[in-house]
Structures are given as C-alpha cells and as structure tokens.
C-alpha cells in the first residue's frame, strides 16, 4: 500500500485536530472498553460466521444428517450477527466519542457485561432448547414452535437483557452528549441557520441522531416483549399486525443504526488518514436530521406482503426507503470521495477498510432500494436477494469496525511499521472472497431461489450449487478475516508492549494524554515508513 508522509503536507495535524480536539490532561475520560469489545467481537464473529458456512453447506447438500440444526443455527447466526454488528458499532462510536464527551465508565462496563449475559442466554436457548423461530422472532411463532416453552422464554429473556442493557447504554451516551451540547447544537441545527460556531464534530451529530432513534427502536422492543410476556401469562393473544410492525420498527431500525454508528466512526477517523478535516456543515446537518424521521418509516417495506397493512402505509414505506438512501448514504459517500480526492491520503489497513466499507454500503444500498420497490419486491421478497443486500451491508459494516479496531491499535503502536504488503494480500483476499460469497446470494435471488430453505427441492437444484460455492467463498473470507483479526489484535499487543512512556511521551508533544490522530500519534513514523 502506498503511504504518504503526513508531515509533507503543512497543516495536516492542525486540521485533524480541529475535527477531533484532544482532551486536556486534567479532564477525566471515560474508561475505554474498546479492547474488550474487540476481543468479544472477534470471537463471536468467527463462531457466528462458522454457523453461516454450516448453513450454506447444508443448503448445498454437503452435510447430510445435520439438517435438523439448520433453523436453530439460522436463528443464532441471524440474531447474533445483527446484535454483534450493533454492539461493535456502538463500542466503536463510543470510543470515537471519548474525545468529545464524557460517558459513564460504569455504564460502559455494564453494557459489556449485559451483552455477554444476553449472549449466554441466547446460546442456552438455541443449543439446549433448539429454539428456531428466526432472528425476527416473528409473532406468534416463538410461542407456537416445536421447541420447549422454556427455550422460548429463555430467548425472550435474552432479548430483554440485551434490550435493557442497550437502552441504558444509549441513554447514557445521550446524557453525555447533553452535558456538553444543547440539543440544537448536538443535532447541528445551528448549521441550518447559517452559523458555524460552535464547531460540532459530525460524529457527535450522527451519534446523537442514532441514539434518539435507538431509543425508539429499543422501546419498541420493550413493548413487543411486554406483549409476549402478557400472552404467556394471560393466554390473551396480541394483534399480529401490531406485533410485526413493532418487531420491524425495532429490528430494521437497529440494523440501520449499526451502519450509521459505523459511519460516525468513519467521519471521525478517515480525516486522520486524508490529512483533511471532515467538518459538519449545513448539508451534513440536513442529511442526518432527515435520517431522524425517515429511518423510522422505512421499515414499512418489510410488510409489503401483509395485505392487512393499509395501502397508504405501503407507499410511505417505498418513499421512505428511497429517501433514506439519499441524505445519509449519498452525502456521506460523496463526502468521503471528496475527502479522499487529491488528498495526502495514507492508505493503511484501517483507511482501506473504511473506504471499502463505504463502498459496500453503497452497493448494498442499491440492492436494498431495488428490493424496497414494491413491484420488484413482489418478485424478490423471500428470495436470496434479501440476504444478499443485508450481507453486503453487514460485511461493509464489519469492515469499518475491523478498520476502527486496527485504527485504535495503531494509536498505541507508535513507531511500529505496518506490514503493508501483507495487508494488501489480506484486503485483496477479503474483497475477492466477499464478492464471490455475495454474488452467490445475488444470483440466487435473481433466479428466484427462496431464502430460509434448509434443503432445496429438485426444482431448485441450482440453489444448492450457489450454496456450495458460497460456502467455499465464505470459508476463504472467514480464514482471511481471522488473519486480519490476528493482525488487528497484534497491533494492540505491540502497543501494549510499547510501554506507557511512548504513549505519554509522544502525546505530550501535542499536550494531550492521548494522541488524537494517527498522524499526531505516529508522527515521524509515517515518514520512516515511506523511507523504508
């Protein structure tokens, strides 16, 4: 990978500092849990990805005799990956926010602990109880499946623990933002009035918007769970239309927020590599405030097939789905392209993953817009097109997250040279295997191969072929990801062995406890790398 010395561009460090001001030595800082999150994410991602490979192998007919575990594993893979993506994005966003606001360290630790407890309950429900209602846990299936009642209750308890934990976490982040900013500043409304002060980092605006929407999503989950519990206790059924609306208000919104939080991280970190600030302005403020409203209406596209949903709402769903892609995605992606264009860009593993993540978001977004078009959805609904587009999103999101973990590790590993050649090989393999894996989904969807079939009938034999190829590509992707994660964890380990002297010593130049940017942190090492 090509590296450019940051110091050859005057003003680079100062510009980055403007976007990400460092904290004064005397000011307390939220305890970082990013390392623990990184290890948790890495471990869970590998396990859950293995389940995905297992599913594609079963669909390909390569694991005869193991089909009966397909639906429990589908449930765990789905809810596990969605939840993991969300918490990893939250953790990364919180890490990025530490420069700007002071969140509670206790809540940060509570979030990690609560998530672990929720995951353990999920594992018990699925592995011991064979709970298999799918990650949507769409009403009334959890209460009417062939699994034991206790496994359904355990699953609901797991969601309760996770929901409450994440709600507390979200509220604490909002509280922390509120301590430093007024609501109008946190949402960037002063930019709409033409004011430029105070300068609010885009990450703060995005996280504020995301946390407000997140409260909506998580309260929706709470209501769904209360209704489930009431039916368990009283036997009185709930309205299926209400339950489905609430479930997707929660689920669809949550996975969207996972991407938005990852985007906040890119807004925060990519300028460090571009040597230019990525400041908030009127357009950024308009786009992310639009998200506040639009993202809550886009979930209606999940109910196109529900004839009881009023037709007006279906049209709102299509318009909102189209509209949701414009402000956030287009503004962000064009913003990123402008940031990189003719910039003194340092292409490292982190910045490449950030950039690829944004591009993956664009590709997955196009797939999503196609699927959210009612006339197309009639054909594509419940085909492999659906997992195609959301896997594109999720891989893009995980790319950003892994990039951010590496970014954080590099902040500590000062003076250490990056293995750019090895990283190039890793990224090439990641992209190639991801393209192959996703292409099998897209092609399957285009040829009407249904989703959620554990074994394809003879009429859908081509689906089995796609599944086998997908399993091969996914295995390569997983192996490369493991190598990538080893590299990421290694960057932290090197940082840890680098010693506190290096940490404080370098940052002392900039007068801060913690280096705010890799350019600032790595300093002359950037030059030395190029010199190598």
């Amino acid at each position: 990978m090509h590296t450019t010395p940051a110091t050859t561009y005057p003003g680079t460090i100062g510009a980055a500092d403007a976007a990400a001001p460092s904290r004064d030595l005397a000011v307390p800082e939220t305890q970082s849990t990013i390392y623990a999150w990184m290890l948790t994410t890495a471990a869970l991602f590998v396990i859950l990805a293995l389940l995905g490979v297992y599913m594609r192998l079963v669909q390909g007919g390569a694991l005869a005799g193991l089909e009966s575990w397909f639906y429990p594993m589908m449930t765990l893979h789905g809810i596990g990956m969605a939840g993991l993506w969300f918490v990893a994005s939250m953790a990364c966003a919180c890490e990025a926010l530490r420069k700007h606001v002071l969140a509670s360290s206790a809540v940060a630790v509570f979030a990690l602990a609560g998530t672990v407890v929720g995951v353990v309950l999920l594992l018990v429900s699925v592995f011991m109880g064979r709970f298999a209602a799918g990650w949507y846990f769409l009403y009334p299936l959890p209460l009417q499946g062939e699994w034991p009642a206790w496994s359904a209750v355990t699953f609901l308890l797991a969601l309760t623990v996770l929901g409450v934990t994440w709600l507390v976490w979200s509220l604490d982040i909002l509280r922390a933002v509120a301590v430093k900013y007024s609501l109008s500043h946190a949402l960037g409304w002063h930019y709409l009035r033409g004011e430029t002060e105070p300068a609010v980092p885009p990450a703060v605006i995005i996280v504020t918007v995301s946390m407000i929407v997140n409260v909506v999503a998580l309260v929706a989950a709470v209501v769904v769970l209360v209704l489930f519990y009431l039916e368990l206790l009283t036997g009185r059924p709930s309205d299926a239309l209400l339950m489905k609306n609430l479930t997707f208000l929660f689920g669809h919104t949550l996975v969207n927020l996972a991407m938005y939080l990852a985007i906040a991280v890119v807004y925060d970190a990519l300028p460090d590599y571009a040597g230019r600030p990525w400041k908030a302005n009127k357009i950024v403020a308009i786009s992310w405030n639009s998200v506040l409203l639009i993202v809550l209406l886009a979930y209606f596209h999940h109910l196109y097939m529900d004839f009881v949903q009023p037709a007006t709402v279906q049209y709102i769903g299509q318009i909102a789905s189209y509209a949701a892609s414009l402000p956030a995605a287009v503004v962000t992606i064009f913003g990123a392209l402008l940031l990189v264009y003719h910039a003194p860009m340092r292409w490292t593993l982190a910045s490449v993953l950030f950039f690829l993540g944004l591009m993956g978001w664009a590709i997955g977004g196009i797939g999503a817009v196609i699927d959210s078009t009612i006339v197309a959805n009639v054909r594509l609904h419940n085909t492999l097109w659906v997992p195609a587009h959301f896997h594109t999103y999720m891989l893009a999101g995980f790319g950003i997250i892994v990039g951010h973990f590496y970014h954080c590790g590099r902040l500590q590993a000062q003076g250490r040279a990056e293995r750019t050649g090895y990283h190039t090989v890793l990224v090439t393999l990641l992209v190639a295997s991801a393209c192959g894996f996703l292409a099998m989904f897209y092609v399957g969807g285009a040829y009407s191969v249904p989703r959620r079939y554990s074994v394809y009938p003879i009429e859908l034999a081509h689906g089995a072929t796609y599944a086998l190829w997908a399993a091969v590509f996914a295995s390569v992707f997983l192996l490369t990801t493991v190598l990538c994660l080893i590299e990421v964890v290694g960057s932290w380990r090197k940082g840890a062995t680098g010693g506190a002297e290096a940490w404080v010593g370098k940052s002392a130049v900039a007068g801060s406890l913690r280096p705010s940017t890799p350019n600032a942190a790595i300093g002359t090492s950037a030059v030395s790398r190029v010199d190598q």
Partner: protein
Amino acid sequence: MWISKSVPVSAACLLAVLVAPAGVGAEPPGAVSPTESRLLNRSVPDVPLQLADGRTVSMSSLWQDKPLLVTFFYRNCHGICSPFLGWVRDAVRDDGGSGRDYRILALSFDEEDTAADMRSQADALGLAGDPDWLFAVAEPEALARVTGALDFWYRLDPATGQYDHGALLAAVHEGRVARALLGGSGFVERFRIMARELRGEFIPFYTVPNQTAWRCFSFDPVSGRLYMDWGLLILGVPTLVAMAVTFGLFRRGPRRG
C-alpha cells in the same frame, strides 16, 4: 433528578396504555376460529341432490352463476337445526343478498328424510316458494362426500334417536369454500362480513379468537367501515417515549466548566 421522577411516571403511563384496553372490548364479530379457517379453499364435491320439488340437480349447477351457502340439518331435530336455520333465514333477509348475490342450500344429513320432509321444513320456516332457498336430500354416498369435505361431523344417538351434530354455514364459491361459519355467538355479525366478501368486498381485518388485545384496525360489518384501534396508539409509544427522554435529557442545557 428529572430522570428519577420521570421514569416511574413514564413506566406507569406505558403500563396504563398497555393494560387499559385489555379489559375492554368483546370478541370481535369478524373472528375466524381455527376450525373455520381450516375449511378455507377446500374443494367441495359435485354430487347429485334431490330438491324439495322432486327435481334432481348437480350441486355444481347451484354454484355455477353465484356463490352457494351450504348448511346441514335434519327434519326431526329437536335441537339446534330449526333455530340455526331460523338465524340463517333472518340474517339473509337482513342482508338482502339472497338471489342477487348468493343462494342457500339446506341439505339434510338424515337418510330417512325425503323430499316431502324438505317441503315441510321450508313451510315451517316460511320459505316455501322462495326460489333462492333450496332444501335437498342426497344419497348416503354423496352425502358422506359432502359432509366429509366440509368436516361436518354427526352421529346418531340410538337412545334418543337424535343426531349429535354441529351447526355450519359454508360459503362455496366456484366449487371451493370461500368462508365458513360455525354457529355461535355473533353469528349474524359474522354473516354480514361473509356476505360482503361474497360480493367481492375485501375485508382485511380478521382476528383470532380469545379477545385479541390491542388491534391496529377493526372492521364494522354493518357500516363496512374500517376504523383505527388501540394498537395504533401503542405503535406510537416508542416515538413518544424517545421524544420525552431526549427533551428531558437536554432540558438543562450544556454544563460549563
């Protein structure tokens, strides 16, 4: 702290919203029981029938140009048969769709019944001479095929000479069950919904039995109007809570220093 006061209040309000509608509202008239829904789209066999006037017709000729409402009875029933036929007759009159939108077939499941018994039953209900009300008997084998297709169960009690049986009204459209009603509470209201469907009206809002809580929408079969229900309010709760929490947290403004 504002939060410490507002959380219990918010929780109480949320609970009140959730619990209050649970105590109100009876079983909606549009309820489809699991047994009824099992019959939907069932194919009904085309069998020969002997009508009260002595003519023999095929069953398919009766649903050829318009839907056919099929019900079962027997002439000497001391139980539900006559009251049920009376309900159907009154519901049909109230609806006003007989002849125009559908016709009605009352089929005896007693092998002892004859065409004369059918005329007698029509007379008793005041339906003699109504061309859209058909009373008929069938050969045992044909009868068994029809009752089997519609899951209509009956059993002769030798001690009393009476049949133990249920009450069913099935709407057959082009040879398939479009809707089925078991006798019971709310029959007339549910009949109205069925009649609207037979006229081609789309009725999207069925509910399952046991007093479904917090429906998003309900349907009034008399006026044919859809109306919003408590469930829509619940759908708005998350947004309201998020707004309240956000404004609550940001209420004090940024702290200096």
